[in-house]
């Protein structure tokens, strides 16, 4: 074997070694992040049906679960992030009182996505509305546009983040429908935490899913239906 062949062999070995070293951590991190190589399908549309008659005034379990799952502080100052909140409503004409959770409604036609200048706000194929934290420039136009006031702006530096739920100072965030759990085949934290099973989660497009069957049998409404946004979150008993 001549000298050139040995050199070439050495070069190839080094190159392969370097490539492996370069790619391996990425592969490992992909595993750690529970990444999936296949994309989501537009045949699915994730949604929730919230039974307001089962939602108890004073119960905050869905909010607590959301805060824990997503690493939010749980504080309620005007500058703190609240991805889900309990709203108490009282009918002015007859005094009927209701309590319900309000969060990103995961609209089919989301105004936040329309107005976002950098396309950081986007709708995933399966209907989940998200913010790309690397693209968001923090202009807050989406917060002006959201009819549900579902979005929060990160006003302070963050510490102790949940690795599955990256957040960032100076960017806008909102309910992700616990996309990291959905991608692992789990339900969103709020739905799982509700003691009265008032939050039914599932695929609106699957006729056999619990949510689709329930939507067929009970009267449900979309909040601010007049805007024609076709929300993924529906309410029963409003």
């Amino acid at each position, binding site marked *: 074997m001549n000298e050139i062949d040995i050199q070439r062999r050495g070069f190839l070995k080094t190159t392969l070694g370097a490539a492996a070293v370069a790619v391996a951590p990425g592969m490992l991190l992909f595993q750690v992040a529970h990444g999936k190589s296949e994309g989501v399908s537009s045949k699915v549309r994730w949604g929730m049906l919230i039974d307001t008659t089962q939602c108890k005034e004073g119960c905050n379990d869905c909010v607590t679960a959301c805060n824990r799952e997503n690493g939010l502080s749980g504080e309620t100052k005007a500058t703190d992030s609240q991805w889900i909140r309990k709203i108490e409503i009282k009918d002015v004409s007859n005094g009927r009182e209701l309590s319900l959770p309000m969060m990103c409604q995961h609209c089919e036609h989301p105004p936040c996505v329309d107005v976002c200048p950098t396309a950081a706000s986007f709708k995933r194929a399966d209907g989940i509305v998200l913010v790309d934290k690397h693209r968001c420039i923090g202009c807050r136009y989406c917060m002006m546009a959201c009819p549900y006031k579902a979005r929060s*702006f990160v006003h*302070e530096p963050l510490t102790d983040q949940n690795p599955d739920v990256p957040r960032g100072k100076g960017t806008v965030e909102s309910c992700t429908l616990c996309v990291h759990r959905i991608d692992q085949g789990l339900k969103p934290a709020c739905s799982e935490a509700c003691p009265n099973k008032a939050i039914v989660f599932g695929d609106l497009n699957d006729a056999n899913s619990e949510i689709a069957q329930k939507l067929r049998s009970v009267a449900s409404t979309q909040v601010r239906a007049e805007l024609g946004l076709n929300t993924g979150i529906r309410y029963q008993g409003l």
Partner: protein
Amino acid sequence: MSSHPPMYFKNHLYWVLLAAGGLVAAAGMYAVHMMEHHGHIISGMNNQIVWGIPHVFAIFLIVAASGVLNVASIGSVFGKAVYKARAPLASLLSIAMLAGGLTVLMLDLGRPDRIIVAATNYNITSVFAWNVVLYSGMFSLVIVYLWTMMERRMNPYNKAAGLAVFVWRFVLTTGTGLIFAFLTARQAYGSAILPPMFIVLSFAWGLAVFHMVQTVIYAWNEKSLNPDILRRKKNLLGVFLLGSLYMVATYHLTNLYFAHQSAFEHFILRDGGIYPNLFWWGYVVLGNLLPLALIYLPGLGKERCVMAASLLVILGGFALLYVFIIGGQAFPLNLFPGFDVSSSFGDGQIADYQPSLYELLLGFGGLAIAFIITTVSVRVLNFMPQDKPYIAD
């Protein structure tokens, strides 16, 4: 002191003015640094009032930057000599205010370091993204327009450039109005009347800024403005003020007519504390009625009156934008019509907003940038209006 020639004091004053402007701009930069470091927590803005005082400054500057070009358009497009002589100064003010306004808007972002993302990731459905094109286009067009006026060989292209600027600034202010007009979710916005309203407001605010700067430049050069020209221009300001009052009145009247909007109108015009006060006293009385009196009342309408009227129009403009932008967000979203609503996130409550010093510094920093650009340019280039003997046209 008397041993120094007058030029000495002027030179001195120029540097003092420039240093003062630089100091305010530096204070603005300091505020940006602090907001970048600590986050928007040190501003008065929050999750309910997401746009605050910086946006009032920025939108005033951008709207006035478009409106001031009216002076140029009347000259270049409609061929009025008095205005044509003022087109270079108007163009300069437009560039200066646009630069100041955009700087404020950009530096208030949560991530100003990512501004390049706004250029590389473009969402075609976003009116903000359209505005990125409209603003940069305006800059370029006005610079070309100035070139066609100030370079003799380019003079033949002046009419075409003037026409392009004329069209572009209408589109630009339409874009500014559309930022709010497209917000169907909020009671204060989501109205098709907003773009034309902003256009008419821009006429008044731009002309007011022009009057102030022109008066200062004439005084600096120890010249006095021909009274006939002053009369024409103050009458024009009066007409613009009446026009903008009409547009603002129409906006509120149409809202009052829609039952679902009346609660918001009652808030902004009567019950909302600082907002109705700023609207009626700040915008209507100080920003319109008093200037109209200064312009039209017999015996008034002299140079000082027009200067005072212009200053009041500008202050009134800030008052109106404060009411429109911050008052519009302070009124709660109506998620459940017919229900009393409460939550930990301010649902059903009037939002509270106290502008912080940092925000104010950022806003004034934008004004300072416009001031510095104007002062330096007027000093190094010839922007003094050159009137031929006055002939009414």
